[in-house]
C-alpha cells in the first residue's frame, strides 16, 4: 500500500530530526570535549614523575627515559550516563605531581589526592579519607611536611603529609585552578573569584586583603625580588608588593594570560594566548620587547640557565635568550612526532634537559626530552604504547 505524500513528508521530517539529534548527541564529544588533562612533571634525584593522559603517574629515568614504574590511578566512582557524560570514569590529571618524603602526590579531576610510593609505584588514596572533593585542577605544592592545593570547591587546603590531617583550609569566593606558590612562609594563589590571595602558610590566615583583578586567575603566581607577578584572564599581567599586596604596575595584552610568567635578569617573560611572549621590565612593567610565536601559549615556560624555553600550543618549542633578547626555534615537536599535537602541559627541566609533554591523537601523549641549548631530541616516551 502506498503511503501518501504528506505522511511521507512527516516521516522524512522525523528521520531528519533523528539524524539531527544524532549529530547533536555526537556533538557532545566534539564540541564539549572529554577531559584529558595537561599534567606536567617533576624531577627528583634523577627520576622524573609525570601525569599521563591515561590517568597514570609514570616514573622514568630522567637521563634515558627508561621506565621505572607506572601507577594507574583508580577511580572510586564511575559516572555512567548515555555516552555523553562530562565526567570521565578514568582518572584525569591536570596538576603537576609533587614529591615529599617517600611519596609522589597528585591531585585528580575526580577530587581525590593520591599518594604513590616513590620506590614501588603503589598508588593509594591519600585525601579525603571518605568520599571525594570537587575536582582538583591545579598542581600540588609540598613544603615542610605539608601539602598545599586548591580545589574547584574554592577551598585552599593544607594537609599534614604524615598524618593526613587537614592543618587548615581557607575558602575563597570561587573555583581554584591555580597552583599555589610558597615564598617565605606565605602562600600565594589565584582564584576564579578574580582575586589573588596571600595566606600564612602555617595557619591559613590572610597576610593582606586579597587583591582584586577584573578576571579569573588561572596562572600560578611567581615571586621575584619581593614582588608577586601573575597573569589574569582580564588580559593583564600584575605586579604586587609581596609584603603588602599593593599594586606596583599592570600590563595589558590582547588575550588571556593563562600560564605563569618567568622572571630572570630583572625581566618578566609573560606568555599570552595571543601567541606572544611579552618581555617586561620587572620594576616598572614597561615593555622591553615581545616575541611573536604565532600560536597561543598555554603551557607554562621554564627557565634553564639564562634561556627561557616556551612551547606554543601547536607544537613549536622556542628558546628566548634573556641576555640578548633573541629567539630561536629549539624544536618542532610536530615534525618529530610526525602528527598533529597539542602542547598545554607546563614545561619542566633538569640538568639542561627540557621535558615537553605533548598530546597526540595517535599516541595519546608523548613526553620529549630535549637538550635545552641544541634542541636535540634526547629521548621520547610514548604513553599509550607502553
Amino acid at each position, binding site marked *: 500500500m502506498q503511503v501518501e505524500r504528506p505522511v511521507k513528508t512527516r516521516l522524512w521530517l522525523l528521520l531528519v530530526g533523528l539524524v539531527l539529534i544524532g549529530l547533536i548527541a555526537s556533538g557532545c564529544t566534539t564540541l564539549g570535549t572529554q577531559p584529558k588533562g595537561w599534567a606536567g612533571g617533576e624531577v627528583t634525584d634523577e627520576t622524573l614523575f609525570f601525569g599521563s593522559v591515561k590517568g597514570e603517574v609514570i616514573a622514568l629515568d630522567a637521563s634515558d627515559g627508561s621506565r621505572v614504574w607506572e601507577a594507574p590511578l583508580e577511580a572510586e566512582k564511575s559516572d555512567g550516563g*548515555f555516552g555523553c557524560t562530562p565526567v570521565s570514569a578514568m582518572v584525569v590529571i591536570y596538576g603537576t605531581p609533587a614529591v615529599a618524603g617517600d611519596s609522589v602526590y597528585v591531585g585528580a579531576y575526580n577530587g581525590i589526592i593520591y599518594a604513590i610510593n616513590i620506590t614501588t609505584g603503589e598508588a593509594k588514596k591519600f585525601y579525603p579519607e571518605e568520599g571525594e572533593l570537587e575536582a582538583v585542577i591545579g598542581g600540588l605544592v609540598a613544603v615542610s611536611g605539608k601539602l598545599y592545593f586548591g580545589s574547584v570547591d574554592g577551598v585552599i587546603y593544607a594537609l599534614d603529609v604524615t598524618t593526613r590531617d587537614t592543618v587548615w583550609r581557607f575558602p575563597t569566593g570561587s573555583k581554584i585552578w591555580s597552583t599555589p606558590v610558597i615564598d617565605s612562609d606565605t602562600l600565594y594563589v589565584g582564584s576564579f573569584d578574580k582575586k589573588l590571595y596571600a595566606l600564612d602558610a602555617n595557619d591559613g590566615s590572610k597576610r593582606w586583603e586579597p587583591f582584586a583583578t577584573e*578576571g579569573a586567575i588561572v596562572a600560578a603566581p611567581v615571586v621575584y625580588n619581593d614582588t608577586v607577578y601573575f597573569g589574569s584572564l582580564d588580559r593583564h599581567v600584575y605586579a604586587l608588593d609581596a609584603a603588602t599586596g599593593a599594586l606596583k604596575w599592570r600590563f595589558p595584552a590582547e588575550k588571556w594570560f593563562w600560564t605563569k610568567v618567568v622572571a630572570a635578569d630583572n625581566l618578566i617573560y609573560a606568555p599570552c594566548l595571543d601567541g606572544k611572549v611579552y618581555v617586561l621590565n620587572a620594576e616598572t612593567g614597561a615593555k622591553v620587547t615581545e616575541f611573536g610565536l604565532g600560536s597561543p601559549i598555554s603551557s607554562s615556560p621554564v627557565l634553564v640557565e639564562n634561556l627561557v624555553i616556551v612551547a606554543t600550543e601547536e607544537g613549536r618549542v622556542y628558546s628566548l635568550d634573556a641576555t640578548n633578547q633573541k629567539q630561536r626555534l629549539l624544536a618542532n615537536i610536530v615534525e618529530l612526532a610526525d602528527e598533529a599535537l597539542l602542547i598545554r602541559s607546563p614545561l619542566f627541566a633538569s640538568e639542561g634537559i627540557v621535558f615537553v609533554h605533548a598530546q597526540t591523537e595517535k599516541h595519546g601523549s608523548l613526553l620529549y626530552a630535549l637538550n635545552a641549548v641544541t634542541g636535540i631530541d634526547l629521548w621520547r616516551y610514548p604513553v599509550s604504547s607502553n
Partner: protein
Amino acid sequence: MIGQLWDVIALQPVMNVLIVLTDYMMSSFGLAIVALTIVVNLAMYPLTMKQIHSTQALQSLQPKLLELQKKYAKDKQKLAQEQMRVYRESGVNPAGCLVPMLIQLPIWIALYQSIIRVLAWTPEDFLGLSQYLYSWPVVYSALPLAEKFLWFNLAIPDTYLAVMVGATMWLQQKMSMPVATDPKQKTQGQMMLWTMPLMFFVLCLSFPSGLALFWVTSSVIRIIMQYLVSGWGGLVISRPGIKIRKPGQKKAALPEAATEADIVEPRSEAEKGLEYGESGGKRQDRGGGYSARLRAIRRQSGRGKDQRRKGR
C-alpha cells in the same frame, strides 16, 4: 575553512552576545539563555508562523488526500497527478514548512553550539573559549559565568528539567497534530508524538542543563505560537456536537498560502464528510481546521487581498 567561516559569522557573535547578556542579566547565565532564546524566536517569528501555517495547511489537506489515495489506489500516476492538483488548487506548497525550517536551522544550531561552548564543562573547553572572545572588556570581566540558576547547575544535567523538556515538547507536538481518522495515520501520529519528546528527555539526562533550559524556553514559545494559530489543537478532546472556537479564529483560520490562492473549491463528498463526525453531529472545529479553511476560501472566492480588506 567552512568551519572557520561558521565560527566567525555565526558562533562568535552568538557566544559574545550571550556573555554580554549575562552581564546585563545580573550575571545570570540562565536568564541570558532565556532572554536570547526569546529574542531569537521573536526575530524568527514570521518564519516560524509561516512554518506553522504551512504545516497546518498540509494537515488540513490530509483527508482529501486520503480520499484520493483510496480512489486511485491502483493508478499511481493518476494519484500523483491528483495530489499535485489538490496542492496547486489549494495553494499549498508541500515543501512550504521545510523552507522556513531550513532557514531557522543554522540559527538554532549556532545558539545550541554557543551555549555548549560558553558553558565550557571541561578545563579544555574553557581554555578553548578564549579564541572565540571579542576584545570587549565586558566579555572578559563577565567570565567565568555563574553556573547556578534556580535550583540547578547549568553545567550538569538535571532530571526535573529533562522532564520539563519532554513534557513541553509533547504538549507542543500534541497541539500541532491533527486528529487522525485513518488507523495507520493515527499510529504514525502517535510515534511522532512520543519519539521526539522521549529522545530529548533522554538526551537531557546527560546534557548540561543550560541546553535543557534553552529547549524548554523554545518549546514554551512554540506552544504560545501554536496556540495563536490553532488554539489548543490536538490537546482538545473531540466531543460530537460541541464546537470550540480557537482564539482569533476569524483571522487565523486561513493559512496565508491559501488566502492568496483565491480558489473556488467545489464542494465534494469528501469535504462534506469532514464537517460531520461519524456520529452525524457537527465535527468539532479545532481551529484552523479543514472545514473552516474551506469555508473561508469560499467566502473569499473571487476577491483579491485588497478587496477583502475593503469588504470588512
